[in-house]
């Protein structure tokens, strides 16, 4: 373990590598010019989504090939086996450089699906999937939600029936982010309808180009389409692509959902920082109430960052993070809402009608995108229930209400 660099040394090394590989981000002095997008979900056409995905993928491959990707993974998967918080240290440095902003399908592949494969996959699956996913040669989306199974995900109806050396999948998935660019879909399916709902579930990795898979974009309230519905019409999946034991799919799913909760603690911070910058640069003096509102957003961002650091510190010290690890997503969605509220107050009519001024109407994309994260990845209400039951130890909902 002695070849683990000290954090400071590691950060300096990362800075050197980034300086030789990427462009430094334009300084804040350039406020008023350049990209003013604050989109939470991108409003891209399919062609644009593919082009952006290719750009992000190029960068992720460069990182991986030069030893700066998969940092906490063992060398056999192209990593350096560093403690997991080194990824955060790396990201702090990367934030100062102009590298492509990752869309959801990337963290889903690298932070959610790959770790679940590491836990649940066979040796053959690990050998086949992990390197390509960490290098983002393969991208994975989550085929979890259905029209009748949202918060109550274990109610999924998509059927998987055994056929020869594989399975036949039939069903309809909704709200699938990144389905247009993903090469694999992680599908939560019902394999046994005759046992209690949590016991009859199995998880499969489905090739998104397999015959019978149809992806249709869903237009969301932002006007664009970053999620889709996915039809699975008698799609054949070889048994070799089943993740985890038959009937144990709920546990596999929970592994992914828990990773998603932990991964969402830093959501919203970039845009909140931008809104605070707007409060500094607005060409009029702020009223007392506006100053208080801006300062309150600042406190939220500070607290959200500190909570992230506490989780990092606990992990670095080899301790199990406590309550702080579960409260991150609720802090993040509250920060996003407070960002909208501040910007609304500061911009007034310029948020409602496009005057063509830099950094004004662009905020509508934040305003319209932010509500999505209160629903995605376990709604705010479901997060509260999880905190109440698993962290505070309060009694569960009575049976029947959740069946």
């Amino acid at each position, binding site marked *: 373990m002695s070849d683990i660099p000290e954090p400071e040394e590691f950060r300096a090394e990362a800075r050197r590598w980034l300086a030789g590989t990427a462009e430094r981000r334009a300084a804040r002095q350039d406020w008023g010019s350049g990209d003013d997008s604050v989109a939470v979900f991108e409003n891209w056409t399919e062609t644009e989504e593919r082009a952006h995905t290719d750009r992000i993928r190029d960068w992720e491959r460069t990182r991986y090939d030069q030893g700066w990707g998969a940092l906490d993974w063992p060398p056999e998967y192209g990593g350096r086996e560093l403690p997991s*918080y080194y990824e955060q240290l790396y990201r*702090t440095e990367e*934030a100062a450089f102009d590298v492509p902003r990752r869309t959801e399908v990337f963290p889903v592949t690298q932070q959610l699906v790959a770790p679940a494969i590491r836990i649940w996959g066979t040796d053959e699956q690990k050998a086949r999937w992990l390197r390509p996913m960490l290098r983002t040669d393969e991208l994975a989306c989550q085929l979890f939600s259905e029209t009748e199974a949202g918060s109550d995900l274990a109610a999924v109806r998509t059927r998987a029936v055994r056929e020869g050396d594989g399975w036949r999948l039939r069903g309809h998935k909704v709200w699938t982010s990144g389905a247009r660019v993903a090469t694999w879909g992680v599908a939560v399916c019902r394999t046994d309808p005759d046992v209690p709902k949590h016991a009859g579930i199995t998880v499969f990795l489905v090739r998104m180009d397999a015959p019978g898979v149809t992806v249709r974009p869903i237009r969301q309230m932002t006007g664009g389409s970053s999620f889709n519905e996915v039809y699975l019409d008698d799609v054949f999946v070889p048994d070799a692509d089943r993740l985890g034991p038959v009937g144990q799919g709920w546990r596999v799913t929970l592994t992914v959902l828990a990773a998603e909760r932990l991964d969402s603690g830093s959501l919203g911070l970039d845009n909140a*920082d931008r809104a*605070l910058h707007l*409060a*500094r*640069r*607005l*060409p*009029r*003096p*702020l009223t*007392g109430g*506006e*100053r*208080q*509102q*801006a*300062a*309150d957003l*600042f*406190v939220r*961002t*500070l*607290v*959200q*960052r*500190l*909570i992230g*650091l*506490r989780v*990092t*510190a*606990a992990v*670095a*010290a080899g*301790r199990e993070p406590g*309550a*702080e690890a579960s*409260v991150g997503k*609720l*802090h993040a969605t509250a920060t996003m809402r407070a960002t909208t509220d501040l910007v609304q107050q500061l911009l007034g009519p310029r948020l409602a009608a496009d005057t063509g001024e830099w950094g004004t109407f662009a905020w509508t994309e934040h305003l319209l995108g932010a509500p999505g994260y209160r629903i995605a990845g376990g709604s705010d*209400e479901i*997060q*509260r*229930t999880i*905190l*109440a*039951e698993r*962290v*505070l*130890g*309060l*009694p*569960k*909902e*009575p049976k029947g209400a959740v069946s």
Partner: protein
Amino acid sequence: MNRLDVDPAVLLESEERRQLRTVLRDLFAESCGPEEVRKQVESARGHDQALWARLAGEIGVHGLALPEEYGGGGYTFAELAVALEEAGRVLCPAPLLSTVVLAGHALLGSGDRRACERWLPGIASGAVTATVAGFVQAADVTAERGPDGWVLRGEADFVPDGEGADLLLVVARAPDGERLFACEPVPPHGTHGSTCDRTARRVLDPTRRQALVRFRGTPAEPVGEPGQVSGIVDAVLGAGRVALAAEHVGGSAHALDATLEYVSQRTQFGRAIGSFQAVKHRLADLLVELEGARSASAYASACLAEWTPELPVAASAAAVACTGAYRLATTEYVQLHGGIGFTWEHPAHLYVRRARADEALFGTADDHRLRLAGLLGLTGTSG
């Protein structure tokens, strides 16, 4: 501030601090439970002098953040913060905040070695209780040179623990500008009659007394140099805010724990009230606020321990996060206990009283937001 450069390790509780917390929690459980707190509050001195002596002597709480040369333990504010959090958890009425934090930092901040040598060892050992006047709320006190040295005239109101303190550190107008003075309202050897009247105010929070102090030619000694006052006031208020934030984390954590225990055991409609989602979700929200407050408090304590340039921002941010959490925690403490929570006998109202009265001490959350906006330039431009 966008790139928060702190070593994550400072936010983690060290083994030493964890042990200190355990020792203090045991001591407070044994001698500062809800019944004891009420008795102490009704006593003449307003707190338990035996407990005060044990805290100072046995555990060394008072000296934790004081330098060894003045009889302290030479630890940092981060250790003292643990003690304040535990004291805040039980609403210990001992004058720790006024003596150790406010008066202690006034003396340290003055850089006056002679005054520090004279007073700090007594503060560290628990022999002396002390407070400050004219720091938190503006006072109207003047100092003049009399035939036997300096004397103070005028009055200072809302002086925390002012009625019983052995030592007052007073900001007063001297002919050469504002200056800090030390005075003993009750002279040690009967050298002069009482020239200092102290009237206890009726207070919202009985666990933290306040007094109106009138100086009628009270003998006093200057501390530090003229022109130093604004720096000393900043140091004291900074320390006070961070200390209060730690107390609030403790008080909020108690409110959450006590409420959790109650809602898990109380049944209505044939089930524990803690199984109703309306109740669960409110407690989950409280946990979210509390973890935020805990993080902000730990960061502010770390900044104060090292006197980093981020301290003013960290202190006000902690004040915003911690007063907010305490307000919410105490509101839910009463509400989720139903009628029993509204009774005089139940301790919940003592926490409501503490939370609200403390906001008047160093500023409400909104006061701190305004201050932060100024510190961070969140003010727009003149056009």
